[in-house]
């Protein structure tokens, strides 16, 4: 940077090295001090939010450059002949101001892009792991196998259907390469899941689907509705002696689709809450990756019902 500045500023090639050393010294001062100040203020700036942190650090750095330029100017005036700085006082300050403003802006832009890029890599990795975690719970798999083992004697036909359903479900789960799937597909997967659980839980499991108004071609991150249903059953229905009704409602709101899943909960089941939080953060992560700030996963943890509401934008061509 010092070299660039010197090259741009000097016409006399004989004075190049002399000018370079001067400029380099000045630039070094500025950058070192800038880094030091930013490091010191870091923890405070982090708490203020992205935009404010940017504006603040930009202002602070710029003020610091100006201050240093002034000090440098005064020092050279006092201790050395004024040859070191050729400019007039205001000219020197102005030049320093403009050059540092541009450099700081470029630098911050670079750092911002780099950090966003890093963040997106982390997010993506997390989403991949989440997708893996969203794979069917072992609890479900073993219980289903047990059910099928039982049905092979009592009702071979139903056992056959259960095996087919379970295979379809596993296939949908293995298909994690596709990060999005159509709403129709996703609802179908959830329905298959419901059929298998119904065999096990009988009349205790009741699900009311009210999703007829949703555009079935709309895309949704794959494996969101089925895991929600799984949660509703695992943490809700299974812990109620008489079971209960899970309700799934979907509607359009302007340009958004809103899908809500609600299940009754047993009172005083602290133990179940932990696992539920994990599953929720999993879906949240994948929503953030898919929609950024435009999607939302809201949880209403009431005393007798637990409700999750998914909100995500509808793309134009999906209507």
């Amino acid at each position, binding site marked *: 940077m010092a070299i660039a500045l010197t090259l741009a500023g000097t016409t006399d090639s004989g004075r190049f090295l002399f000018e370079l050393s001067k400029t380099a010294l000045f630039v070094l001062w500025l950058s070192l001090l800038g880094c030091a100040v930013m490091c010191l203020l870091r923890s405070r700036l982090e708490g203020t939010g992205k935009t404010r942190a940017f504006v603040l650090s930009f202002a602070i750095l710029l003020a610091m450059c100006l201050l240093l330029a002034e000090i440098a100017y005064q020092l050279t005036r006092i201790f050395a002949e004024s040859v070191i700085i050729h400019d007039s006082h205001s000219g020197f300050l102005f030049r320093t101001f403009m050059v540092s403003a541009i450099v700081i802006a470029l630098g911050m832009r670079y750092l911002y892009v780099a950090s966003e890029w890093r963040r997106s890599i982390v997010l993506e990795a997390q989403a991949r792991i989440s997708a893996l975690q969203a794979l069917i*719970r072992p609890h479900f798999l073993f*219980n289903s196998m*047990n059910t099928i*083992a039982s049905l092979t*004697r009592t009702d071979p036909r139903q056992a056959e259907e259960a095996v087919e359903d379970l295979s379809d479900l596993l296939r949908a789960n293995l298909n994690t390469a596709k990060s999005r799937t159509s709403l129709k597909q996703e609802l179908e997967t959830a329905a298959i899941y419901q059929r298998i659980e119904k065999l096990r839980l*009988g009349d205790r499991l009741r699900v009311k689907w009210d999703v007829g108004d949703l555009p079935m071609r709309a895309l949704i991150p794959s494996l969101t509705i089925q895991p929600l249903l799984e949660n509703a059953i695992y943490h809700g229905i*299974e812990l109620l002696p008489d079971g209960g009704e899970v309700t799934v409602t979907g509607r359009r709101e302007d340009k958004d689709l809103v899908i809500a899943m609600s299940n009754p909960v*047993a009172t005083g089941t602290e*133990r179940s809450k932990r696992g539920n939080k994990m599953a929720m953060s999993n879906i949240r992560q994948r929503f953030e990756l898919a929609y950024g700030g435009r999607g939302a996963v809201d949880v209403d943890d009431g005393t007798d019902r637990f409700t999750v509401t998914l909100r995500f934008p509808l793309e134009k061509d999906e209507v």
Partner: protein
Amino acid sequence: MKILIVDDEQPARDRLRQLIDDFDKYEVVAEAANGEQAVRLAAETKPDIVLLDIRMPGLDGIQAAQHLNRLDPAPAIVFATAYDEYAIDAFEARAIGYVLKPVRRERLASALEQAARLAAGTLAEVAAASHMEPRRQHLCSMSHGQLKLIPLQDVNYCQADQKYVCVHHAGGRDLIDDSLKSLEEEFADAFVRIHRSAVVAVASIERLEKTPDGKHRVILRDGSQQPENELIISRRHLADVRRRLKGG
């Protein structure tokens, strides 16, 4: 040998019954769909072995086992679970019988063969190790062959009456087999001893009142069953009761 099957899922019960029917020496005497039914049926049918699912609504397997353990004679218990690594680790460590779902015939045979009564205290250890509620959540009353589970939060106080202990709770009064001393120990953070013959649930105490003759007595939140001259706090327990009421 008589077996009681306990599982909240019909197909799971069917499966166990199918397998047991294949064995000659065992006979299924009853099936229960939840923990409460299990304890009641066990008291009635006196099975030798209870096959007990762990994850059940209401009274779960571990809790039910704690009540089963108090029956006389106490049945041997074999747990059944689909997947619960913590519980399985705990069973392994303490040589408690269990089978994994889907249940394998040979595994079930050997688990039934080795089924043994659980030593007292073992279950509490298992519960703690598998992050389950280590304490009973109900008191269990047996009267005229009828079993009744009284939720702990409904209990106001327990009073010793010669041989028996009488539980006064939101739903009335019942006799239980536990001694005051064991109740006081098991539910140390919920109950407080006020007298040689009474423990009171701290949560149901409204305030303390001074009687005309200079003694102190407990006033319950649920005033309806407040006896006239009962729940007198003996001198040696007064300081302790006051400390507990302050949340100490």
